[in-house]
């Protein structure tokens, strides 16, 4: 358990790095981090259920303009990590669904709580930027590399700490709820999962279609063709 938790915290730091400061390769997206955590914790089905919900919501959250979007890099790791940690201590199928619900909610809360922390980091980087310019003026060319390294370390450390605190709080605070109220929570998951997926998919569809009739028609044709192929294929 401890090694898995440690891996989860480190993945939180790596995801925080990939999201903005380093490379932006989508390693930080919830589906990717959830799949990695599913392999680490040995429970891929649960990780994918939580990962899909958070991924659809993350994809409909856009880092454009001045708005700081929700931090789904850390949110994805916290969501999948909390669900897997809770489920690892509860053996039944209903507790699997209860863990998925609590994990997905923990992921969304983490994504929202990550926003002020991102803003704080960006303000710290302003100080770093001013220091670097003044050091360059004094002839210290290495200040540029030092400032870049400091930005990377700050981001990684913030990601690890936020993940550790939120996963720790979720496991400590929600364990009792998941154990004693797993039936009710499983019922809530049965309702929340399709609502969340529908909400996120509609946001994406709205962004793709942009009032173009041909794209709306493509959506309809693909839906019908997919549905028919799945129904006929299973006969």
């Amino acid at each position, binding site marked *: 358990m401890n090694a898995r938790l440690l891996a989860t915290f480190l993945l939180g730091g790596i995801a925080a790095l990939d999201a903005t*400061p*380093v490379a*932006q390769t*989508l390693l930080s*997206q919830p*589906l*990717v981090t*959830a*799949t990695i955590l599913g392999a680490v914790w040995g429970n891929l*089905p649960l990780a*994918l259920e939580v*990962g899909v919900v958070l*991924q659809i919501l993350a994809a409909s*959250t*856009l880092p*454009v303009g001045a708005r700081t979007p929700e931090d789904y890099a850390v949110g994805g790791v916290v969501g999948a990590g909390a669900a897997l940690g809770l489920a690892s201590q509860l053996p039944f199928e209903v507790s699997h669904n209860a863990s998925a619900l609590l994990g997905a*909610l923990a992921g*969304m*809360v983490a*994504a929202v709580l990550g926003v002020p922390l991102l803003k704080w980091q960006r*303000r710290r980087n*302003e100080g*770093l*930027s001013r220091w*670097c310019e003044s050091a360059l*003026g004094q002839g210290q060319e290495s200040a*540029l590399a030092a400032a*870049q390294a400091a*930005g*990377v370390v700050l981001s990684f450390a913030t990601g690890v700490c936020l993940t550790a605190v939120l996963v720790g709080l979720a496991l400590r605070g929600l364990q009792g709820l998941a154990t004693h109220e797993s039936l*009710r929570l499983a*019922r*809530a*998951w*049965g309702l*929340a999962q*399709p*609502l*969340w*997926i*529908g*909400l*996120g*998919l*509609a*946001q*994406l*569809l*709205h*962004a793709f*279609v942009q009032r*173009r009739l041909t794209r*709306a028609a*493509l959506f309809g044709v*693909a*839906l019908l063709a*997919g549905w028919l192929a*799945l129904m006929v294929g*299973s*006969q």
Partner: protein
Amino acid sequence: MSEKRLTRGDRLSMGLRAALLQATWNYERQQGLGWAWALKPALDRFYPDAERRRERLTEHTAYFNTQPTLASLALGAVAGLEEQRAAGAPVDAAAVARVKSALGSSLAAIGDRLFWLTLRPVAACVGVVFALNGRWFGALTMWACYNWFHLGLRFAGVEWGYREGPEVLGTPLRARLEDLVRGLGALGAALIGLIVATVLVPGGNPRPMVFQAALAAGLVLGMLTAQRARPSPTEWALGIGLLCIAAGWMR
């Protein structure tokens, strides 16, 4: 006066360093420090004199912001300008700043639409289609779909920018990128249709009526809430989650 030219190794190094363009992103200068860091191999090549090099580096720490993948094009173009400047051509700091500003805003305009509004959601949809069927490689497919383009452009972009100069985002490239945005938008709409079908009938077994009704309700709510920026989808999802917990308790 310098006659030095940028080597392939320098351009590769700039492409690699462009990965850290946003390492110190801040409200005041945004990608300014990251830009200077990525351009440093070129400045090292053109300005062997440490004092002149530091002056140029300091100039380049000024405000800069664009879409991070397409920044490679601007990096190559500005490296070409710095090469001319070091060789004694009449290119001053203001001219370099003007090119940076013009390229930064036009690359951001097309790059935000291409990467954040289209390619990333499309790659996510491809991954989700596989993940809904319990396939672990959904994440890998998503990552590969995005990165063959993202990483390819990050490295090739420096070459293009260096070769084409400030006109790198001319009409042919812009038209090709616009076509790509349109094509990906249509693909995305079709993928959403496929995902909805997969969610409704996973493996050919229709979901219970309650699930289908809840999915339809989610789609309608999503369409209605997409008309307004606030509350965000996450805030709506949190509210829905709490309502579902309340419903689970009352039933």
